[in-house]
């Protein structure tokens, strides 16, 4: 028995060949057979890093982020809106509270076992400047992102899995970008693929990256209430050399025209002041190093 048979998943009943198809299935527009039911693919294996999160990191994070609040919190201060809401002259105007938006100045919600910081998705993003002049320059980046992420649109019958998406220019900025022109690619990783990507990043890519001291982190003087500090997202960039270190790319690196750098965003459920610091605590539980600038 070879190694593949040993590691293969266990069946409760002996497998046998699929039954013969007597009446052929209806075909879709792409000439593919359409099954009688909506098939949705779920987890095919238990995930190592997800296990690590649920058995070790989550408990520790709850203890680390807990603040003892024996008394109920004070109700938030009522801030006067810019215009009098009862004045018929200004009734339908946009009427924000004075002093700008306050979402980033809210204190974090009390820590409970339910709202411990949790990784929701990882987004990879790459801008290809040459694609402004010729769209075909995006193809290499699309292939590389497909290989790294393993995601494809509607994969496993799930509508929410969007695969590798093309990013278009939002604004017309003279000499740099035009509106609606494809300029980059991005992909959202969720579920087991997200944990697999995190494991590969930490074990194969970051240790072999040259001159990498850690994900840069600003000093302690930065206020906790800035939008970046309170948004619950940690982002960093990887140089083009790093793409060649992903094992999915490494096996046939010469099939790609060139290597691309990428931005990685770790998007979590953390909110309130200092949310980014809590995300850093979460990520260091997966051995992502952080270093002061």
């Amino acid at each position: 028995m070879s190694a593949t048979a040993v590691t293969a998943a266990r069946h409760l009943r002996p497998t046998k060949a699929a039954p013969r198809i007597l009446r052929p299935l209806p075909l879709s527009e792409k000439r593919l057979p359409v099954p009688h039911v909506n098939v949705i693919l779920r987890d095919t294996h238990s995930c190592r890093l997800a296990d690590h999160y649920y058995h070790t990191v989550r408990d520790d994070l709850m203890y680390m982020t807990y603040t003892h609040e024996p008394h109920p919190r004070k109700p938030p201060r009522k801030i006067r809106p810019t215009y009098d809401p009862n004045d018929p002259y200004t009734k339908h105007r946009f009427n924000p509270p004075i002093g700008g938006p306050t979402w980033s100045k809210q204190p974090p919600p009390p820590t409970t076992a339910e709202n411990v910081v949790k990784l929701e998705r990882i987004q990879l993003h790459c801008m290809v400047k040459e694609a402004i002049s010729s769209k075909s320059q995006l193809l290499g980046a699309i292939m590389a992102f497909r290989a790294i992420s393993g995601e494809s649109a509607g994969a496993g019958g799930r509508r929410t899995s969007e695969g590798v998406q093309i990013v278009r220019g939002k604004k017309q900025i003279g000499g740099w970008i035009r509106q609606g022109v494809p300029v980059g690619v991005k992909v959202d990783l969720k579920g087991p693929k997200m944990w697999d990507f995190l494991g590969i990043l930490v074990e194969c890519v970051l240790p072999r990256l040259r001159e990498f001291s850690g994900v840069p982190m600003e000093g302690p003087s930065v206020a906790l209430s800035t939008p970046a500090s309170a948004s619950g997202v940690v982002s960093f960039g990887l140089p083009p050399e790093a793409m060649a270190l992903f094992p999915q790319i490494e096996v046939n690196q010469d099939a790609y025209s060139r290597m691309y750098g990428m931005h990685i965003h770790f998007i979590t459920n953390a909110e309130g002041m200092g949310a980014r610091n809590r995300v850093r605590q979460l990520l260091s539980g997966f051995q992502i190093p952080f270093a002061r600038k």
Partner: protein
Amino acid sequence: MLPRNALSACSRRTPTRLWALSRPLATEAAATEAAKPSSSTLPPHPPKQRRPKPVINTGIILNRSPLITREPTLFEQAYHAYQARIQRALFNPFPDEFYFKPGTILEERFKKEEEEREREAFGPPRKAAASKDSAFTESESKSASESSENQSDNVDEPMPRVSEADKKGDVRSLDRRMDRNLYLLVHAKDQKGKPRWRFPQGGREHGELLHEAAKRDLFAECGDHMDAWIVSRNPIGVYEPPLPADTEAEVIPKTYIFFYKAHILAGQVQPDGKNILDFAWLTKEELESRVDKEYWLAIKDILSDF
């Protein structure tokens, strides 16, 4: 759960206002009551003995987190196998000409492994198709099995999930029960000299913060031949040992043990052998049989089930 004076012992300065608040407030009713006995002589109050300040101790729940993934249950295994078959039946065809140069050894090996995975998922190929060229498939399968035997030497076998310590039943080893959270219990003499199983614990010096005391106590009892990390500055649980049922119980101060969570990162426990007689790394279920019942009730909810 905790009386007020237990918490006051935590703070560095004892607040004087607590004493002031314990006096009755100066209301009119109190004033009239107070006026009555003042006319007659005061009955001699027996000198009431106040219970001394409670003692705050720290206990450390030293944890070795799982080293390998949990063994899936029978149901999970069947579920994953079923989903893997769906995936194999429906996924996009693998672009092998993109990843392998045609005619290479690597490609041949991949195709053989892929065939075997296909057979594992869907069983042997259908009989009608097989009967056409049965002789050919038989000879091919023979050669395939021979070549797979030859190749099996090259493929790395995974490490066993059961370690030497599991086979020997060595509870002191950190390699035992690799898929579970383990906790350190020490076999220590209590005040009467009777040995008991408990978590490492210790006292707190004057002016010392609790989490600092926890770190000091851990190394004091378990030796400094290990690298350990106290997870947070907050305690994760509290235990109040029962007072001895004596008449003198009023004089004995209450004791509170605040538990802190810690992880062992390297090294091993090396107790001095004077007060600590033995130690063991145990899972939650194994722990129950060793500790006292009251101790178990206090700690069972702060330990991990996995």
